[in-house]
């Protein structure tokens, strides 16, 4: 790229870059931007986590003790929005920024300045979501799905929420354009698509999903906005519109969104499990095709979220069968991960533990998803705690555990230092136990008929709710241990070798020193 600086210093590069805060504000370096994404995501994870603890604390006992119903509804809404758009998605974009250029042998992302803008759109959006709590009437208690007609009648907080979604969508779209272009155009010579680490493949597919569906969500919330203020009647039945239309448009975005969260998590796990099994990934090509099939199928199943909204029985059957079909490529992936471990020389460091936690619990969440895909069963379980338990197994034990696995795995490469292995294992076991204490019992609550998004409940649900709340506090506090581990690693961890994991084989481990230099691969690596 920069011919004038062809000489190779290591991390201290010749051309001066801003220091102090301007290093971050003006950064065009994929590693700095990746770091900012990860810290932003962790901050939002704590904000959304506090909201979850408010919800669970209110549900500790039947009756209203701590908060009022309006505030409770606002908490369920913004907990969902912040965790999905503020925590999980930016976390994986952070991974993408850090890793994709290093894994494909590129000097940086394709559009470094756009990369900077993608990140710096996030804090204003987060501020809008938080500021919505202080609007007249409080936050919009409409649920993270923002269904009309409730959202078209909600207070001014709804407008802030809509604009936040717009901004987050623009940020995601720009990030995805950057990732697709980087992967397709910037690979080192010899790095063919089918030689890329699976993490890059999963992100390539995810980025296409994002470019396809984030604009549809933007359209849905724009229609909500014009219904609220500009006299349109998209979702107003009295004006010839239809509130069910909103659900169709939303879930056309919403179902691929589930895979936007899950597929990069698959990518991380597909790097971690082979490294600690000391074997190459079993069935690489089938992994790529399975991921692509999941992505394509995700566009054809959206109405399984709305079986109870009113649909001809033929449509219900179609959506049921199509949804069940997704279990096939997902099963291919799960069996490939298991086969990767078969007869491998396994060791169980923290990243591997989190990857195994992912494998068990994500599969469990997948099974409850299959249960919910069966129309007559779903009609019974729709909007109960069974659904809450299901998607937390997929989102927390799936995406979040995989993100933890990735952070422990790459932290030595990023910081140049090792984390404390004992504390890392403590973090895993505490998270695993408290996660199940929190969410496993919610299956029973849902089967017994407890509705979600309600601040009070009938007395027979009291015991399981109390258990779940204790688990939630345990899980929340365990994450402070994670913060401590990361800070301790950055400040005073032992120096890490270039390749701390014996079985790791992608370019960032084999071709780059630890910590990864400020600029990597200004001259493309030579691939055997």
């Amino acid at each position, binding site marked *: 790229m920069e011919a004038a600086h062809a000489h190779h210093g290591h991390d201290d590069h010749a051309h001066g870059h801003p220091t102090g805060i301007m290093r971050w504000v003006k950064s065009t370096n994929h590693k700095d931007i990746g770091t900012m994404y990860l810290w932003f995501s962790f901050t939002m994870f704590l904000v959304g986590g506090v909201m979850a603890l408010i919800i669970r604390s209110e549900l500790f006992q039947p009756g209203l003790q701590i908060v009022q119903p309006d505030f409770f509804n606002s908490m369920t809404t913004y907990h969902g929005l912040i965790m999905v758009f503020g925590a999980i998605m930016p976390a994986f974009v952070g991974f993408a920024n850090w890793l994709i250029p290093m894994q494909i042998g590129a000097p940086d992302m394709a559009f470094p300045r756009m990369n900077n803008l993608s990140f710096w759109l996030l804090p204003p959006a987060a501020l809008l979501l938080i500021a919505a709590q202080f609007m007249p009437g409080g936050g919009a208690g409409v649920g993270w799905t923002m269904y009309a007609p409730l959202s078209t009648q909600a207070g001014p907080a709804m407008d802030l929420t809509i604009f936040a979604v717009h901004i987050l969508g623009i940020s995601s779209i720009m990030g995805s354009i950057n990732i697709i272009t980087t992967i397709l155009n910037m690979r080192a010579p010899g790095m063919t698509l089918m030689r890329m680490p699976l993490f890059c493949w999963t992100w390539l597919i995810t980025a296409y999903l994002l470019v396809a569906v984030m*604009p549809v969500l933007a359209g849905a919330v724009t229609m909500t906005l014009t219904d609220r203020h500009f006299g349109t009647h*998209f979702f107003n039945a*009295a*004006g010839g519109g239809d509130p069910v239309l909103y659900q169709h448009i939303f879930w056309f975005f919403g179902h691929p969104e589930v895979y936007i969260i899950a597929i990069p998590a698959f990518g991380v796990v597909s790097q971690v499990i082979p490294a600690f099994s000391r074997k190459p990934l079993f069935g690489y090509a089938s992994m790529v095709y399975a991921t692509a099939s999941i992505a394509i199928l995700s566009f054809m199943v959206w109405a399984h979220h709305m079986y109870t909204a009113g649909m001809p029985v033929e449509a219900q059957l179609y959506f049921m069968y199509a949804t069940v079909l997704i279990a096939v490529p997902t099963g291919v992936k799960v069996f490939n991960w298991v086969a990767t471990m078969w007869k491998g020389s396994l060791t169980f460091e923290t990243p591997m533990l989190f990857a195994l936690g992912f494998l068990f619990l994500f599969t469990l969440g997948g099974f409850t998803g299959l249960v919910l895909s069966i129309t007559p069963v779903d009609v019974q379980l729709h909007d109960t705690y069974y659904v809450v338990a299901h998607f937390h197994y997929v989102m927390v034990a799936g995406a979040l555990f995989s993100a933890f696995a990735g952070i422990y795995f790459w932290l030595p490469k990023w910081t140049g230092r090792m984390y404390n292995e004992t504390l890392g294992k403590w973090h895993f076991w505490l998270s695993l136990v408290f996660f199940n204490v929190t969410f496993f019992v919610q299956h029973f609550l849902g089967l017994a008929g407890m509705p979600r998004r309600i601040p009070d409940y009938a007395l027979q649900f009291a015991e399981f709710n109390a258990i779940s709340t204790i688990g939630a506090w345990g899980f929340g506090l365990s994450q402070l241990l994670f913060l401590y581990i990361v800070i301790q690693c950055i400040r005073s961890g032992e120096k890490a070798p270039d390749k701390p994991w014996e079985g790791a084989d992608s370019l960032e481990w084999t071709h780059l020193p630890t910590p990864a230099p400020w600029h990597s691969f200004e001259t493309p690596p030579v691939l055997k």
Partner: protein
Amino acid sequence: MKKERANRRMMVRLSIFAVAMFGFGFALVPFYEKICEVTGINNLIKPAAAVENTQVDKSRWVTLEFDSNSHGLEWDFRPVQRSVRVHPGEMIQIEYEVKNNGGKAIVGQAIPSYGPKHAAPFVKKLECFCFRQQPLQAGEGKRMPVQFVIDSTLPADVNTITLSYTFFEVKGASTAPAKSGGQG
């Protein structure tokens, strides 16, 4: 540099794709309308295709309640009778009164809704003011009929049906008095 041009070209293509998907979200609106029309879901303001069973079921009574709302209009809009008791299968005609109290001519469109919702397909409307737009000059008032039959296959647990109309303004429609609309 060649690579930079290739990158830029890809960015332009992907941006166009994203903008097209934004348009696609809006294209879903007429798309769903068409699907509902073709499959016969949500036919609120169309006459019933045919009333198949005209046998009057004298063995049961159904109470019909009439309700009226106007959506941000200065219109007086009310049913002449609040409720009627009928046999399923009987042909019934009732009337609504409407008067424009505002200072300007407005075209309104009434949208029916039913309670309970699943009773809707059993109310077979043969004639209704909701089938067309209703222009009202300033100060003008009129009576408008609804003619319908309750299908005798109405589920046994439905004893009361509420038929509610909401008038809303059709912006930009011609306010010239309709030639045949409303039948007075």
